[in-house]
């Protein structure tokens, strides 16, 4: 501890150089934090996705091919199924085509919310279930378009009504939030019965069924049992939990793992060299000062540790501020992928790496300083 002032004065011997190195390390760790945070953040979000919420969709595609709504009763009769809800997705827009809104038509049967990732205020539920034209709006969507509960919302949709008109009007009954992985984008919930009755085409088909199970441990056998119902028919189903779906989404961006690793290694390699040359330079300039320290009794080991301490202090402080900045920036990225956050483990790994970088890059200059012969060093003057 008593050497701290000495380390401190060593660091500030050339303030310009130290500030530059500090910034360079900080910038590197901002990048490390953002990239690594994205990766581990996504992994965490996947682990948090529910394994007991099943999506029954066509084997052919997730949303492109529909299923007959008549599958509902057989699915409900499968042992272990708690609720099965038909879901139809269709695209609409508000005022202009750039303002897309996804309409999710659901049947608000008993306990229907257990089969979704939506959080809805209990007092809004009866109003939504009662009225055929009622709609619940994603909180961010309502804020974006300035909609309030009780407003009439006119949307123009890709699916026309029986009258041929693409205009649909809903009454806003409340708001909801969505914790689904990747569940960003504007959307509203509407009543499936009303939609199915009013639409011009595709009546009696749905995009998928959402199923919640009585017990998370039976999710896999329930999924298999549901898929067996339609095996070898012309509408084969595939039942997956939303965690499995999230995992697949992540696997699809999987090659970015390799890229992130490559980028981070390149950054660290450049950093190692920069710090090492700077420290060597610094030790060379201080030859006589270090020789004086040794003359008044500092051992080789202490001098070695002093130089190492300087590098450690700069690296750790810079890495901490870089990671801090990355943590502050990441919520911007989280807007695109819901559920993203900077896990603490990333911060710990980052600080660990900064210690390693400091130790490796300062090893050679510290050794130079420790091996310094007092007589020759002072004679050079």
């Amino acid at each position, binding site marked *: 501890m008593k050497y701290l002032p000495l380390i401190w004065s060593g660091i500030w011997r050339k303030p310009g*150089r130290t500030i530059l190195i500090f910034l360079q390390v900080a910038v590197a760790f901002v990048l490390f934090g953002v990239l690594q945070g994205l990766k581990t953040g996504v992994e965490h979000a996947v682990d948090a996705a529910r394994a007991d919420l099943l999506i029954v969709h066509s084997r052919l595609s997730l949303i492109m091919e529909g299923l007959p709504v008549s599958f509902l009763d057989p699915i409900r009769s499968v042992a272990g199924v708690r609720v099965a809800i038909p879901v139809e997705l269709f695209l609409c827009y508000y005022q202009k085509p750039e303002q897309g809104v996804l309409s999710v038509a659901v049947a608000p049967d008993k306990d229907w919310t257990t089969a979704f990732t939506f959080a809805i205020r209990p007092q809004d539920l009866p109003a939504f279930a009662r009225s055929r034209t009622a709609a619940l709006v994603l909180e961010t969507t309502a804020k974006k378009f300035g909609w309030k509960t009780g407003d009439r919302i006119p949307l123009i949709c890709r699916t026309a009504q029986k009258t041929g008109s693409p205009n649909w009007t809903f009454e806003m009954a409340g708001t909801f939030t969505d914790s689904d992985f990747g569940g960003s984008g504007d959307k509203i919930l509407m009543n499936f019965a009303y939609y199915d009755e009013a639409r011009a085409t595709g009546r009696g088909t749905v995009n998928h069924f959402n199923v919640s199970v009585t017990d998370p441990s039976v999710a896999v056998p329930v999924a298999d049992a549901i898929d067996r119902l339609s095996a070898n028919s012309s509408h084969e189903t595939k039942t997956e939990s939303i965690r499995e779906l999230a995992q697949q989404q992540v696997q*699809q961006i*999987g090659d970015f793992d390799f890229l992130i690793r490559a980028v981070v290694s390149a950054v660290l390699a450049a950093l190692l060299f920069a710090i090492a040359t700077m420290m060597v*330079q610094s030790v060379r300039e201080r030859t006589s000062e270090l020789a004086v320290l040794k003359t008044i009794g500092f051992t080789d080991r202490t001098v070695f540790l002093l130089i190492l301490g300087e590098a450690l202090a700069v690296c750790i402080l810079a890495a901490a501020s870089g990671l801090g900045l990355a943590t502050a920036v990441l919520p911007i990225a989280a807007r695109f992928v819901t559920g993203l956050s900077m896990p603490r483990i990333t911060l710990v790994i980052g600080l660990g790496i900064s210690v390693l970088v400091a130790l490796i890059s300062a090893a050679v200059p510290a050794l130079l300083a420790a091996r310094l012969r007092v007589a020759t060093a002072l004679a050079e003057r």
Partner: protein
Amino acid sequence: MNFLRQAAALLRLNLGGLSARGGSAVTILIGVTCTVGVLVSMLAMGTGAHRQAVGYVRDDTAVVTSRGSNGLDSSVSRDEAATVADLPGIASGSDGKPLVGHDAIVVIEGHRRGRGVRVFFPLIGTSPIVTAMRPEMHFTDGRMFQPGLHELVASNPCVRTFTGFELGARRAVRGIDWTVVGHYDQGNNMQCLVLADVETLMTAFGRNTFNEVVVRLKSPGDFDAFRAALEANPAVHLQVKRERDAAEERFKGFRAILNFAAYFVGAIMAVGATLGAVNSLYSIVDARRRELATLRAIGFGSGAIVVATLVESVLLSLPGALLGAAVAWLFFHGMAVSPFGFSFALDVTPGLAEIGIAWALVMGFLGGLLPALRAARVPVTTALRAT
């Protein structure tokens, strides 16, 4: 003139003394190499994906879809399709029939070789006339599908990337077994495209409208006349785009994401490398204080010193740029990646190398500014007196 001669002489002196300050030069070299290497590799994803997205495009081909749609949600009725075939400007095949193809697109799932990752990709129902419309399409194995039969043909990238496309393989789609009967190449297309007979596919999926009508024009110049005739026809509610424009439009959003990622990472790394270069150049200048003071004392102007230091900095960043671009080309050119379910090969082009080099020159210039000013301001008397 005198100024330039001074600067040139100083530059020779600067570069000549570099070997004595190798550490600093190597720091700049490695910093720039890493930055340019990463930037070029990441931009190569964008160019690779783009080359693939427009790889199949013909300039004399146009795509007709329902108005306001973007491909998959388009629907063109049989009546409308028949009207399109009668419009002017359409080329005729050797048998005199107009070169008009009808496409219906469905999405099926596939599994990548190796890790078995699931990817969704389009199965395109198309008219058998497609072989006449796209002469660059040729079969490397097997044959074309026969109308009316449940047969598939797959482009060779499918066979390489996904499982289940071997000749004779059967894939269950809509409860029916479809047999893979041919493999084909199409120009420099790297995309996985699976084709089937459009009528058979639409029957299997219970559809009665096409997604799009593809027409081969007599020449690329006939496009405007064709479009005018289509839009003037009150019987149809359709739009037409050149095939290239349609492909570019579909691709725009994806490329924006890739390029944003590349420039974001590239910019942060460039800031880091520039800071490193500033530091290295400062220490080079510091180590030469007496030398610089001597030069000033014997009459070299401070302007010449600034220019010489700046040029030195820019020159020091050049080898790193070349090395970085070379590393990107050596290690990543042609590497197959599949982010977001798209699958394509990285494409490192000379244009990207130029971007990387320009990036490095800017880094060198900005990094050299402050050290150059310090070099020019070395106080002659104190620097010479100092030991």
